[in-house]
Each structure stands twice: as structure tokens, then as C-alpha cells.
């Protein structure tokens, strides 16, 4: 045997064997991995789609930052378990037509133990509006008096309609009536900031866990960029006794929903969102599927720029008479919870407050007129459009869509229906995120599949979308009637007048077809059975664990 191996073992052989043994050893070394839910230490583990771009509450814009900030910080008010507004830093408040007053709790504290004062709000709001801060959500502070002028650099920040009366009272003056102001104070741009911290760190403020202060139910005890985040219950939080979950661990950053679902199945994370790819598997595995309405409206937006065929009303009405949102939702998208849309206002938009004080839905009180799909009528409209435009045949139309598989599926459905029903050629222009946005901005489309998620809990977040002055009106729809209705609602605090104007606006959108609503999105998810009381919601950061708790496992009671 010896001669076979040579006089001494080859270095190569030693190397291979060493590597192999090492690999085996390490592969089987025990590793500590937290369970999705740990009742003993009251800790939960979750995944995060990506790292938040910034945690500076004045500059943040995205849902990840909103989720984290809603745990780390607290505004004057906050959304409670049932979706109603409750006291945050403010314990009492008063809303009038011209302004609002807030009385702050004396026991609201920052994570360094100092009290949260009215000055922290004044500073935060001024800071968010200063042009140099370049906050993209500055507009959400525009209900404050002079806010818009300050944001444009026309007035100094001291002119902002907010002032501190002592340490614990905040007085707000409005530019225009703002009946939805209380909800705004729960939004991240309205959260307090400590001037000394912002001044000290400047651009590095909120870049690391120790470079920002917390006044919310949690503090960030660890932030390893791109890898993991850990939240711990804030011992200085005034409502710490209401917070049951002591620790929220976020050790997985992945946007891949199938990876999230696999982590959930392996009991590593307590919550996982599903897309249609995982839905069947989740049902098959016998998981409870939860759903909630995200409040976002999806629609087809027409281009009204000169020379576009879509600027012709008869043409748009032809498409309206042709397309049936319920077929799209039921046959093409096939996601439970997604609703066909018929109105500019989703069913989730709240309406006038009833005399009982509870909020009701706008659509319950002002139903939308539905245009039933009718092929003959569609063809009539198309003939009329032909005559009005003075053409004999329609050139191909460009439909701009995003790069998700679902967007393509949807686009192909339109392509098929338009060809079959009206003999129209639809060219699908599929673009990745930023390129699509740029093409929308430049008006490089005939029709674009767009969506809008509400910024605040009021009908106005949808209503002013297609007013002529709104930069988000990418199709450049310009209707004096529409503008007038929006202004009418924006300048009155009388709920009756506001909602009448909105009802008229809803009808105008059906009649004039600046957009064709297609569906209202919903989010599906699976959740660990022991995890209870998680708030899923459109506003105030989603999901929210402030009031969640861990139940004992079934059968161990």
C-alpha cells in the first residue's frame, strides 16, 4: 500500500482532507437561532424587505421607515388598536376651524430621560419645512399657517403657525380649515425631533442606532447596516406598561417573498406577506391566511397632452364601456381581498363623522355610479371618437407598465380585450421603476398603469390628485370643474359641504374619465398563531406591535 501513496502524503491530499474535515465540523457546529416567537422572553423575530433609507423622521418617505419610526417615535397622537386616534405625546387636544391646541403629557420622555416638550415639535416642524432639509413630505405640513411659503423659501421659519406655550402646550394655526389634522399628527413628518441631536450630528443624524433619540415604545438597540436591526422596549416610554412585547428582532433583510415564506415555515419569523406564488402553498400547508386592505387604488391614467388620442373623451368612454374591473380582479389577478374599483375613492376612505362620533366610510354614504361593460356602446363611442378626431383608423397606443409579473399579466389582459373588442392595437411598454416614473413625468405614454396610496386619512389625499396644480397628475388632466370642486372642499370645514363636493367629484371622474379605476389592492399574510393583537393598517406604520402580545401555545393553558 505504501508505494501507492508515495513516500510522503501529497500536500494536495492534506489540504483536501483538512478542508473537508473543517467543513464537516463547522457545518454541524450548533448554531443559536431565535424562534419566531419566544413567550418566555417575550421576543419576536421578523424579516425586513430592505434597510430603511433613512430614519430621520423629517426626511423619511418609505414604508420601511414608517414601520420602524412608528415604533421608535411617537407623535402628538397615534393610531390605536382599533384604528381610532389616541393620545400619544399629547394627552388632551382641541380642534377648531382655525387651529388646534395640544396638551402634552408630563411623563413623555426621550430615551435619554429628558422630557418631550412642545419645543421639540416646533423645532421638528420648522426643520421639516426648511428648504435646506429638502423633505419630500413637506407638503403634508402645509395645513400649518405659512408652511407652504416657508417651504418655498419665501418666509423665515419663525412665521410658521405653531408655537409652544410653556413646555407642555402646543398651539397650531391653520392656513385653511383642516378637519383631518389630528390624523396628520400621527404621521412621521410630524414626530418630534430634539434640536441638540439634529444639530450635533447634522447629516449623520439617524444614520446609526446611537445617532438618534427615541420617544416611542421601542428603542433601537442594534443596527448593523444591511444585516440586522433589533428593537427593545423603551424603559423611558410613558406607556411602557402597555407594551407587552419586549424585543423585536429583525435579523433577515430580504425582499424575496418566497424566502420570507420559507423562513416563516421554518418558524424563524412570526409574520410573512404572501404573493400569489406562495398563496397556494400556504393554503396547502393549512396556515391561516390573513388579509387587510392597503388602501391603495390602482388605475389606468390617460395622457391629456396635445395630440394624444387619449385626450378625446369619446375614446376614453369607449375604453370605460369596454373594460370590466371585476373580470380583471377575478379572472386575471386572482388574489383574495383585492376589490374591483369603480371610483376615484377606494372603499377604505373615511367619510363624514356620524353624529355618534364614529367615522364612517365615504362610499357607504355616497355610492358610485357604475358603468356596466357594454361592447356595443363601446363601439359606438369609438366610432364617435373617430369622427371627432377626423381619422379613419387608430394608431397603436402605448401602455406604460411596471416590471412586475403581475403588471405584465394585467397589461396583456388589456391588450387582448382592446384588440378583440375594439380592434385596437396596444403596445406594452414595460419599464423598471425609475424609468417608468421618468416616462410618466415626461408624458411618454398614452395610458399608464398607475397606483396611489393615501398619505393621510382623508378623502383629499385622493381628491386633489388630478387637480391641475398637482405634480402627481402625470397625465396633465386639466378640468376647471374638477379644480373648483377640490378648492371648494379644501376651503371649508363644514363636513356636509366638503362631502357633497367630493360626491360631485366622484361622479365627474365617472363621467369625464380622467382615469379608469381598476382595483383596490389588499395584502395577504400569514402570522404565527401565538402572536396576537398585531395592528395592520393603512395609516400610522404597518404592521404595528405596540399593543401586540404573545399568547400561550394552544393546549398548554
Amino acid at each position, binding site marked *: 500500500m505504501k508505494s*501507492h*501513496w*508515495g513516500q510522503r502524503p*501529497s500536500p*494536495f*491530499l492534506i489540504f*483536501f482532507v483538512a*478542508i*473537508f474535515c473543517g*467543513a464537516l465540523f*463547522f*457545518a454541524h457546529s450548533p*448554531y443559536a*437561532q431565535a424562534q419566531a416567537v419566544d413567550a418566555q422572553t417575550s421576543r419576536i423575530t421578523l*424579516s425586513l424587505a430592505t434597510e430603511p*433609507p*433613512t430614519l*430621520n423622521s423629517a*426626511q423619511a*418617505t418609505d414604508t420601511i421607515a414608517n414601520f420602524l419610526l412608528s415604533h421608535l417615535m411617537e407623535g402628538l397622537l397615534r393610531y390605536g388598536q382599533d384604528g381610532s386616534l389616541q393620545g400619544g405625546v399629547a394627552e388632551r387636544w382641541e380642534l377648531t376651524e382655525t387651529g388646534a391646541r395640544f396638551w402634552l403629557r408630563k411623563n413623555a420622555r426621550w430615551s435619554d430621560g429628558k422630557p418631550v416638550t412642545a419645543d421639540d415639535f416646533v423645532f421638528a416642524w420648522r426643520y421639516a419645512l426648511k*428648504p*435646506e432639509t*429638502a*423633505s*419630500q413630505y*413637506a*407638503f403634508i405640513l402645509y395645513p400649518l399657517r405659512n408652511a407652504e411659503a416657508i*417651504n*418655498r423659501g419665501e418666509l423665515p421659519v419663525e412665521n410658521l403657525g405653531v408655537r409652544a406655550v410653556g413646555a407642555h402646550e402646543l398651539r397650531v394655526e391653520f392656513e385653511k380649515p383642516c378637519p383631518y389634522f389630528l390624523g396628520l399628527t400621527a404621521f412621521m413628518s410630524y414626530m418630534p425631533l430634539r434640536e441638540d441631536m439634529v444639530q450635533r450630528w447634522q*447629516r*449623520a*443624524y439617524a*444614520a446609526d442606532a446611537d445617532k438618534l433619540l427615541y420617544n416611542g415604545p421601542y428603542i433601537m438597540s442594534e443596527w448593523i*447596516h*444591511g*444585516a*440586522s436591526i433589533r428593537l427593545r422596549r423603551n424603559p423611558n416610554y410613558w406607556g411602557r406598561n402597555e407594551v407587552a412585547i419586549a424585543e423585536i428582532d429583525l435579523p*433577515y*433583510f*430580504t*425582499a*424575496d417573498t*418566497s*424566502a420570507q415564506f*420559507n*423562513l416563516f*415555515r*421554518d418558524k*424563524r419569523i412570526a409574520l410573512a406577506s404572501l404573493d400569489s406564488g406562495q398563496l397556494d402553498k400556504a393554503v396547502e400547508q393549512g396556515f391561516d391566511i390573513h388579509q387587510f386592505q392597503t388602501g391603495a387604488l390602482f388605475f389606468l391614467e390617460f395622457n391629456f397632452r396635445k395630440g394624444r388620442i387619449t385626450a378625446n373623451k369619446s375614446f376614453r368612454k369607449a375604453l370605460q364601456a369596454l373594460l370590466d374591473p371585476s373580470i380583471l380582479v377575478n379572472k386575471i389577478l386572482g388574489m383574495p381581498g383585492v376589490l374591483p374599483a369603480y371610483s376615484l375613492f377606494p372603499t377604505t376612505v373615511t367619510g363624514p363623522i356620524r353624529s355618534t362620533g364614529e367615522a364612517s366610510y365615504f362610499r357607504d354614504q355616497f355610492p358610485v355610479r357604475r358603468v356596466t361593460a357594454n361592447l356595443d356602446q363601446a363601439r359606438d363611442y369609438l366610432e364617435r371618437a373617430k369622427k371627432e378626431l377626423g381619422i379613419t383608423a387608430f394608431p397603436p397606443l402605448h401602455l406604460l407598465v411596471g416590471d412586475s409579473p403581475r403588471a405584465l399579466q394585467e397589461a396583456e389582459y388589456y391588450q387582448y380585450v382592446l384588440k378583440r373588442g375594439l380592434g385596437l392595437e396596444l403596445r406594452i411598454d414595460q419599464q*423598471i*421603476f*425609475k*424609468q417608468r*416614473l*421618468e*416616462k410618466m*413625468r415626461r408624458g411618454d405614454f398614452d395610458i399608464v398603469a398607475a397606483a396611489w396610496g393615501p398619505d393621510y386619512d382623508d378623502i383629499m389625499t385622493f381628491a386633489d390628485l388630478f387637480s391641475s396644480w398637482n*405634480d*402627481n397628475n*402625470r397625465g396633465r388632466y386639466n378640468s376647471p370643474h374638477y379644480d373648483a370642486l377640490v378648492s371648494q372642499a379644501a376651503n371649508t370645514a363644514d363636513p356636509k359641504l366638503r362631502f357633497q363636493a367630493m360626491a360631485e367629484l366622484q361622479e365627474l371622474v365617472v363621467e369625464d374619465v380622467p382615469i379608469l379605476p381598476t382595483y383596490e389592492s389588499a395584502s395577504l399574510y400569514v402570522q404565527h398563531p401565538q402572536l396576537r393583537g398585531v395592528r395592520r393598517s393603512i395609516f400610522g406604520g404597518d404592521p404595528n406591535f405596540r399593543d401586540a402580545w404573545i399568547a400561550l401555545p394552544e393546549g398548554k393553558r
Partner: protein
Amino acid sequence: MWTFAFKRLLSGAVTIWFIATATFFAMHAVPGDPLTRDKAMSPAVRAQLEQRYGLDKPLVTQYRLFLGNMLKGDFGISFTQENRRVNDIIREHFPVSAMLGITALLIAFIGAVAAGSIAAQFRGQWPDRLLMMAVVAAISVPGFVIAAVAQLLIVQLNNRLGQPLIPVAGWGGFSHLWVPALVLGLGTMAYLSRLMRASMLEVTNSEYILAARAKGAYGWRLFWSHQLRNALLPVVTELGPAIAALTTGGFVVELIFAIPGLGRYFVQAVQQLDYTVIMGTTVFYGAFLVIMVVAVDIAYGLIDPRIRYSRGR
């Protein structure tokens, strides 16, 4: 030897400059810019942000500033990670990608040498056919499918056992590393296996092996001392590009296994048009690739004097 190394390094530097310039102008030619967001920005806010990032300057000025900063080794601040410097992103995340890539390469190299040798020894017989079939499969199935399937298998294995044996995703110890590394290295392993097999066959049929046999060498001794060492040379040449490909190509694996590597930043930056991160990662990866190729060239020259002499003169 030194002139040879110097020349290679110089041409490497020119390559990097070319990569940087081409990327810079291509990136700016794409519609949209890093400030394009789904909600429209007021012109005042936009002007502020453009000024902050220097986007208000003419493109040539921006290019000149970029080149100047690049020579100083500073790539600026990310647009999507608004408070982070690109240098920090590379410094913090490249080691993760490198660790994953090197492990993947080790697995690929060892696996390929073993598979290639076995296939060559049993040429035309069933082990050869089986291995080469696996090789074709590993080359043709895309990485994201292999990654997703591997993850699913882990979930099922852990569920079967009732306790976690292998982590599904995440980053930590070696236990988190080896499955993603295996998945990442599989394609390279397959490619190298074919190379190894061909090289081994050539060596086995060469005259000096016949001579060695005639002198009485056989079995392991013949394999280790005569066949393997000679057959390894072409495979070693491929290691440079392979290591660069593996340390840079882990985007899908990093996404699916939630690994905080640089690959994710590299790809997401392009999607988000994050100019500074695109430039930083592209130049960094470009430089890394060039250096690896040069290093292998030089190392090869050291191993095999014929190359040094023919090129060095």
C-alpha cells in the same frame, strides 16, 4: 518578470479608467435620475437635493469631480441609503460577499477536481455519464431556481427533523454559509469539472504518462504525482476570473438567503439609479476583477516558466 508585472498592472489601470468612464456616461444616459421618486417632488425640494448631490452641475464637471474623488478613493454618499457613504457600504458588505465567494470557490474547486478526475478515469462508463449529466444540469438551471429549491429542501428537512439543522436564511456562523456557498459555486463547479475532465483526459493520453507507467508508476501514485498536478494547470488559470465572478455574482443568492453582501447593493443601485453606489461598486468590482486576472497571470508566470519567458521578453 518585473517589467511583465508592471505592464500588466498599467493596462489594468487603463481598463479600470475605461470601465469607470463608460459606466458614468451610460448611467447618466438612462432616463430618470436618483431623485426620481414615485411621488412628485416640488421644484424647490428638487433643486435643493440636486445641489446637495452636485447634480445641478454640467455633466462634464460632474465627471471631472467624480474622477478627482475616485483618485482620492472617495465615492460620495448614497442616494438610497441617505446617510451612508459608499465607501462604508463597500467596506462593510464586501467582506461578506468575499467570504461567500471564497467558500463557494473552494467548494467549486474541490468538487470540480474530484468530479473531473473521476469522470476522466471512468471515461464513457456510467460515473462519467452521470457526472456529465449533472454538470449540464448545473450549468443550465439558473441560480435563483437552485437557490429557491435548496431553501425549500432545508425547510422540509428541518420540519421533518422537528428541529432546525440548517438555517433557512440569515448570516452568522459557518452554518449559515455553506449552503448558499454551495448554491453559488455550483455553476462554477460544473464548468470547472468539464475543464478538469478534458484536461485530465489529455494528460492521461500523453506520452509522459505512458513513460511513467512504463517505469512502474500506477494507481494513486501515478494519479497524484503525474496526472493530477499536470491536469490542474488549466483549472488554476480559471480561478482568477472565477473568484471575481463568485464574489461579485452573488446577488440572487444574497437576496434569497438574506445575506448582507455587496451584490445586493450592486444590483439594487442599478434599479434605483443610485449614481454614487453604481459608480462605487462598479469601479470596485472592476478593479477587483482586473487585479485578480493580473494576479493569476503573474502567479501563472511563477508556476510555469514557459509563460514568463514567452511573455516577459
